[in-house]
């Protein structure tokens, strides 16, 4: 535990505004101070820049695909190019945006702040994680520039090992190396949460954001190595013709699928659990009320982390897996849905008798709860064997996972960015424009992906460059939605950059929220806290005196 260290007490801030005080932004200037930093807050911002670049690249591929699908006979690009587009869209979005997004940006920035630590347990390892991410990114960008890969982000063998003549090896190495950046972040979080909590910060006084990141780190640490070795075997088989997955040499493609999905299903929980953590914070902050059933939501995160490893077979119901195994995976997949349902019910119950304000972060949070519910329920439908046979590998699946990834993870990521942006930059962003972009995202998203549920049940297979004419109407609707969604995602990029320079000063706690990260200044000093915090109460205690009088001078936002 952090006993009160003898380090010289930092001078408590005087009346001058946040920017004259020493904080992590003005502590040092110049490229070297950023590229060699060990401050978890600066590394969080470095990650923000890297993953935004990949989000832009992935979105570009997605939009080209949606344009291509406007017409039944593919007119925009050749089939081979389309195959590379959807593959690179999958690889960039899954490995380079969704998995690192919330843990590496918001998690890096907030985990030490929320538990009252000066920094993560291994700062140099944290910086190494960013450099390893970029090294992997270089391999993948090189592959993209030189023509990309056409195997699908799932790299199914024997196509990826013996029939594809694209840059599979360099993309595989890119994903292999970037996997280590994820492992380093997960390792850092586990040790920090275990060993470096502020005095008085017991496990059940931890904010739910920390619980969800702890569960995510457990999945990262236990799952990522398995895809690392699988990807390595695919690369080895292409280079050395080993035949581990090549049916002609006795190998078995189904073994590849088992190894691949053993990581890739827990990977979707790596993407959604941090988002759930963000939503717990947003709902508590904007309803100004502790989360209903705190312990159940905390244990639900851990239950998802553990059960998430038992269910991967539901990706292989029709792939030649035995009926016996299919039945076992189906019942286990049903069980893993229960903790998610518990979370959604608890968030909704938190709103009861709360004092709800409709700032932008809350709009994203409420949007998340609705869309995640629909995404989760369609997931349980897919776990039902009878339905999955018909809708497997169709657009129903595409719609399901986009409801979870875009409707869930990205909405929560945007909500989190909007909520903690004043803490990161000390600035505010335009209120009306941000609410507009939230609405655009919600409407555009539903218009893009709900028609795909119908397309899926009609039987339109996924990854098709050309499709029968009767599916065109729904595809045109989907592309229209995609353009609205594109605008909705682009707006925050502009007004966040604008607000860095011209945004109104936000003060230390613009939302009047409770939490260790809000007890310190915005932007926080490099050492995070002027006086080391001692924790005496639970995470979301809005019903206390000193919280009350701080409220009085809080300015309401436009």
């Amino acid at each position, binding site marked *: 535990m952090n006993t009160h260290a003898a380090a010289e007490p930092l001078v408590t801030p005087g009346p001058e505004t946040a920017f004259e005080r020493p904080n992590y932004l003005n502590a040092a200037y110049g490229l070297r101070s950023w590229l060699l930093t060990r401050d978890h807050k600066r590394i969080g911002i470095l990650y923000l820049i890297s993953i935004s670049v990949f989000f832009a690249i992935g979105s570009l591929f997605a939009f080209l695909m949606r344009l291509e699908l406007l017409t039944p006979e593919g007119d925009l690009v050749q089939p081979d190019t389309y195959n590379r587009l959807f593959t690179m869209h999958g690889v960039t979005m899954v490995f380079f945006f969704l998995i690192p997004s919330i843990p590496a940006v918001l998690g890096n920035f907030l985990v030490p702040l929320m538990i009252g630590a000066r920094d993560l347990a291994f700062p140099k390892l944290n910086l190494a994680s960013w450099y390893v991410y970029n090294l992997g990114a270089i391999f993948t960008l090189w592959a993209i520039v030189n023509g990309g890969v056409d195997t699908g982000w799932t790299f199914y063998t024997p196509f990826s090992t013996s029939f594809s003549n694209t840059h599979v090896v360099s993309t595989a190495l890119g994903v292999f190396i970037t996997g280590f950046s994820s492992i380093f972040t997960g390792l850092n979080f586990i040790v920090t949460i275990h060993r470096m909590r502020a005095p008085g910060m017991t496990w059940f006084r931890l904010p739910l954001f920390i619980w969800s990141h702890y569960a995510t780190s457990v999945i990262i640490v236990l799952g990522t190595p398995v895809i690392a070795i699988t990807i390595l075997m695919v690369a080895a088989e292409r280079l050395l013709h080993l035949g581990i997955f090549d049916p002609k040499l006795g190998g078995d493609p189904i073994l590849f699928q088992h190894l691949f999905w053993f990581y890739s299903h827990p990977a979707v929980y790596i993407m959604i659990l941090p988002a759930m953590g963000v939503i717990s914070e947003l709902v508590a902050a904007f309803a100004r009320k502790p989360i209903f059933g705190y312990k159940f939501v905390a244990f639900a995160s851990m239950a998802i982390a553990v059960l998430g490893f038992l269910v991967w077979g539901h990706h292989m119901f029709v792939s030649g897996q035995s009926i016996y195994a299919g039945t076992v995976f189906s019942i286990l997949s049903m069980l893993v849905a229960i903790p998610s349902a518990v979370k959604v019910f608890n968030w*909704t119950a938190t709103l009861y008798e*709360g004092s709800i304000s409709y700032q932008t972060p809350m709009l994203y949070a409420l949007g998340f709860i609705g869309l995640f519910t629909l995404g989760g329920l369609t997931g349980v439908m897919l776990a039902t064997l009878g339905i999955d046979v018909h809708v497997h590998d169709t657009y129903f699946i595409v719609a399901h996972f986009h409801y979870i990834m875009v409707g869930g993870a990205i909405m929560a990521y945007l909500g989190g960015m909007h909520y903690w942006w004043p803490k990161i930059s000390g600035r505010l962003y335009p209120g009306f424009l941000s609410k507009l972009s939230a609405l655009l995202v919600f409407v555009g998203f539903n218009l893009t992906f709900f028609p795909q549920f119908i397309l899926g049940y009609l039987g339109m297979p996924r990854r098709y460059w050309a499709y029968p004419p009767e599916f065109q109407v729904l595809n045109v609707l989907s592309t229209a939605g995609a353009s609205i969604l594109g605008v909705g995602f682009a707006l925050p990029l502009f007004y966040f950059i604008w607000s860095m320079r011209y945004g109104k000063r936000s003060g230390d706690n613009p939302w009047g929220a409770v939490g260790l990260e809000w007890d310190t200044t915005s932007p926080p000093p490099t050492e995070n806290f002027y006086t080391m915090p001692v924790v005496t109460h639970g995470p979301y205690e809005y019903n206390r005196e000193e919280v009350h009088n701080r409220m009085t001078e809080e300015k309401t936002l436009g």
Partner: protein
Amino acid sequence: MNPELPFFPEAASTVAGDVDVLFITWSVISAFFTLLIAGLIVYFMARYRRRHPEEVGARERTALWLEVAWSVIPLLITLVMFVWGTRVYFKIYRPPADAIEYTAVGKQWMWKLQHPEGQREINTLHIPVGQPIKLKLTSEDVIHSFFVPAFRVKQDAVPGRYTSVWFEATKPGVYHLFCAEYCGGEHSRMVGSVIAMEPQRYEEWLAGGAGGKSMVASGAELFQQLACDTCHRAADNTGRLVRGPALDGVYGSEVQLASGGTAVADDNYLRESILNPNAKIVAGWQPVMPTFQGQVSEEQLTQLIAYVRSLGAGEGTAAAGGTGGPSHGPLDSAGGQIDSPAPQTAGPAKPEQQ
């Protein structure tokens, strides 16, 4: 599209109705819970909106009964749906006894389909209505997936192994056939149609079409051509060496293996024994059989297996002749230690590659 219901696929197989009912039930449940949550959120947003900046929400409260309720109720719903879904799944993957076996071989970007009567088609499959059809699938290169949306069935064709699915058309018509597992450049071109026809029109089509030899007949012909019968013969009194187990009545029976285990002589076992004879050697026999890897194509393999099946349980055709002896031929009197001469390669005439 289904003429009656807009945006709903046609139901043209016996199992389609069950899948649709299951799907609609789940959709109703999902819609109910989504609207419940969305409705609660909208109501709470209106009812508990913040009146003045200093307002704070109520004190923390947890209700154990509520937590148990919204854990157990979803659990019960999912268990019921699991049982129902699994029953439909078993119905899709357990063919009835009277199913006729067709064969589908996926090859990069075409479906090669073969009727039991020997008729071969590419990307189109004519089937009689009202007759359960068991489809045996395999692939020659990458993983493909045989998907007929109107029949609600889908099954991956995996290279190196047989997988199977069955369906029974209920309505004549032309239905889409897709490849659902991504298989490379022309994945979206690997489509076709399944044409369900009234039984007598199917017979006419069959007769009209190029009536190729039946699978069993071409299998028997291959059995001779590849000199399989030089070893696999019932013991007869001509004193010729018997070095391979006679195959009549073998299909589906329990076979005693040299390595001590037993195996069911099913399609996979026969396929493996032709391509990789030493994997499972029958007890009491020397491993002298050469491999036919690379000498027989997928279709010829299925024809050979169809022929061996036709030898099952006594309806031995002319080729087998001899008594339906015990499943593995008698050893020679010296206790089976035939010093088998170096296995002279059977040197079969090179069957023309497909």
